[in-house]
């Protein structure tokens, strides 16, 4: 079995485990390359017909290309797509001028509202260990408490790939089928499977997005990689972090605010 087959089978196994254990399961779909890859794996796991809904947390600030892509493939693949927005916060005028508050209100609170509304027990998320230092500590099955807090000191052990999928009540479980994938794995797999992605990832005029989210918080990186093959080639030689273009790296934002107030910027 080659590496991609192995990654794929492990993810499919985790997805099926999650579906077996949780009646109220949903998959978070941000329309980025990772969650679209996860969506592809879910379709594979259930032979083209995903038996649980997909949840899209709409901040209203995403790229127009992302909305278009979402609606097109939702129809094409016959997905049960639930879209939620924190309308209250948006009505009060929440905008990305205040990055930290905006993310909390539109993403975290938006998700809380959706969980309360639909009563989900577990959510599939397309995060990967190599994305960010803090994510390296994640588990495949990761309980969150009522406040959504992730207590990283109280996580089930996952030795020898044995997963603990039971948790106390009042928590919901986050399931991370892509945890063991790297950015490069994702791109090799996209290439092999010919998975559709939004063309924001492909270079235009010397720039492309390596990571996408809300328009005001994403910066393109310098790149001439205009095909998946070229992206793979580029990633083989870069040392820059994938999320370098994401202004929402919250600690950096905090640091920046602090330094600005002290006159260091």
């Amino acid at each position: 079995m080659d590496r991609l087959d192995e990654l794929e089978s492990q993810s499919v196994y985790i997805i099926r485990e999650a579906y077996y254990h949780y009646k109220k399961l949903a998959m978070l779909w941000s329309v980025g390359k990772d969650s679209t890859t996860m969506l592809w794996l879910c379709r594979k796991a259930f032979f083209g017909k995903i038996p649980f809904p997909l949840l899209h947390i709409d901040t209203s600030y995403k790229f127009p290309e992302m909305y278009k892509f979402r609606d097109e493939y939702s129809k094409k693949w016959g997905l049960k797509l639930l879209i939620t927005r924190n309308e209250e916060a948006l009505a009060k005028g929440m905008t990305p001028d205040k990055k930290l508050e905006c993310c909390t209100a539109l993403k975290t609170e938006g998700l809380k509202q959706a969980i309360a509304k639909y009563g989900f027990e577990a959510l599939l998320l397309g995060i990967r260990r190599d994305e960010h230092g803090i994510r390296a500590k994640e588990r495949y099955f990761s309980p969150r408490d009522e406040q959504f807090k992730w207590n990283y000191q109280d996580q089930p052990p996952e030795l020898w790939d044995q997963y603990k999928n039971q948790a106390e009540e009042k928590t919901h479980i986050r399931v991370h089928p892509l945890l063991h994938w790297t950015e490069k794995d994702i791109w090799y797999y996209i290439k092999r499977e010919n998975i559709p992605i939004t063309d924001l990832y492909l270079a235009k005029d010397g720039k492309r997005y390596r990571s996408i989210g809300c328009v005001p918080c994403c910066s393109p990186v310098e790149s001439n990689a205009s095909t998946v093959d070229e992206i793979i080639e580029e990633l083989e030689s870069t040392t820059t972090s994938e999320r370098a273009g994401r202004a929402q790296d919250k600690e950096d934002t905090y640091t920046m605010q602090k330094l600005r107030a002290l006159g260091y910027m």
Partner: protein
Amino acid sequence: MTIKHNPKFMVLSIDGVPIGLLRQLMGEGVMPNMAALAEQVGTRQMRSVQPTVSCVAWSGYMTGKNPGKHGIYGFIDRREGSYDLKFPNSLTMATENIWEILSQANKRVFGMNVPGSFPPRQVNGILIGGFLSPSLEKAAWPADESNYLKSIDYRLDSDAQLARRDKQAMLGDLDITLARRMEAMFYYMDTEDWDFFHTHIMGSDRINHFLLQKFEQEDPEFAPAFRAYYRKIDEAVGKVLDRLPDDTPLLIFSDHGFCPIKQEVQLSRHLVEKGWTVPADPIRHPLSIEPAKSRAYCLIPGRGYVNLKGREPGGIVPPEEYQQIREQLSRDLLEMREPNTNEKVIRKVLMREEIYWPSGCRGIQKMEPLEVARHEGAFGKAADVIAMPYDGYDLKLGLAGKTLFQKTELEGMHTYHDAFMIARGVELPKDDLEISMLARPILEKLDVEPPTDMDGIGEAITPDV
């Protein structure tokens, strides 16, 4: 109260207090406890670091090394492989710190609020990060200590935004922050006989930044408030002196001095005006430059970089022109004048190899410009040229700023030569003293062998610039 425990070595550092101000406040009777201690053991002047900012100074203190070895040169850096910003912290520090070295020798250590110590490294004891820590949980090692800190409403830092809006509110905030920090300090002193115990006070730097001129001009509202704050620091010093046995080794010192600001200087604006840097459109952050058109760029404070081919991702200056570009850039910087007074702004421009040396070296190295340019590791992150301003000209980084010179709410800026040191029971180098020379005598006092690559003696002392 009966005192059960006391540390075997105590450090109480007070950020950004110049020796002149300290002497004035001791003389006026504002700081009687410090004065009494100084009377017994003397006060000394100490040199800071280049560039003179807290995170670099404290990194020098906690590693006992030159920045060329620890790799911390400021609060912001360029992210490798891009022109984005990155925020250096203890994880990017290339070498172990004093708490780790002592931990390896089985000493019990404590550190609280020392700039540059976040995220806390895993030590044999407790480390609580300083003002750039985003939350108490993340600031504390072990993270559980945040429970106690939360219970006393401990504050990582005072609110500088507030300081810009409302000086009275800032003063209240500084008082609470100091009070909670001192409460935590005495709480932790009481928990065990620490081998090494270091608490840092940051508020002095803040009050100097925002009120130094009002103090010097004897402003009727704020000069008394300024003295009152220093009186509170002195009271805390008094309590520490009361409880510590007289033979406990003790260091009380600052990391740099301060002077009033005449003008803030947007150095990146100067580089734009002189054609060195071409800003991107739109300017998203202080490093938003057009690499294909920029021969040089800068970072705060006074750190000039050549946009070097093969090193910067969009570098355009061929390595063989590196030295020539550095020299031209230096001349340009030295020529800058404040238009109203015609005063010169930059006192000196140093090449990176004149004050920094790489890991494994014991002082300034003779290097060819090409070797300097292409050096990797911690030394290779240094600015290519370092501009030292005359006192009063605070070098900033404002690519989007429209004016080169401006005056804001900030009243004080850091100075290099005039930090202070009061040392009891610790043998420090006799003549010249710089902040990176402190780790070695601390370790020696605690019978711990300093790492072989530690600086601070002989040739491995930064030349006095």
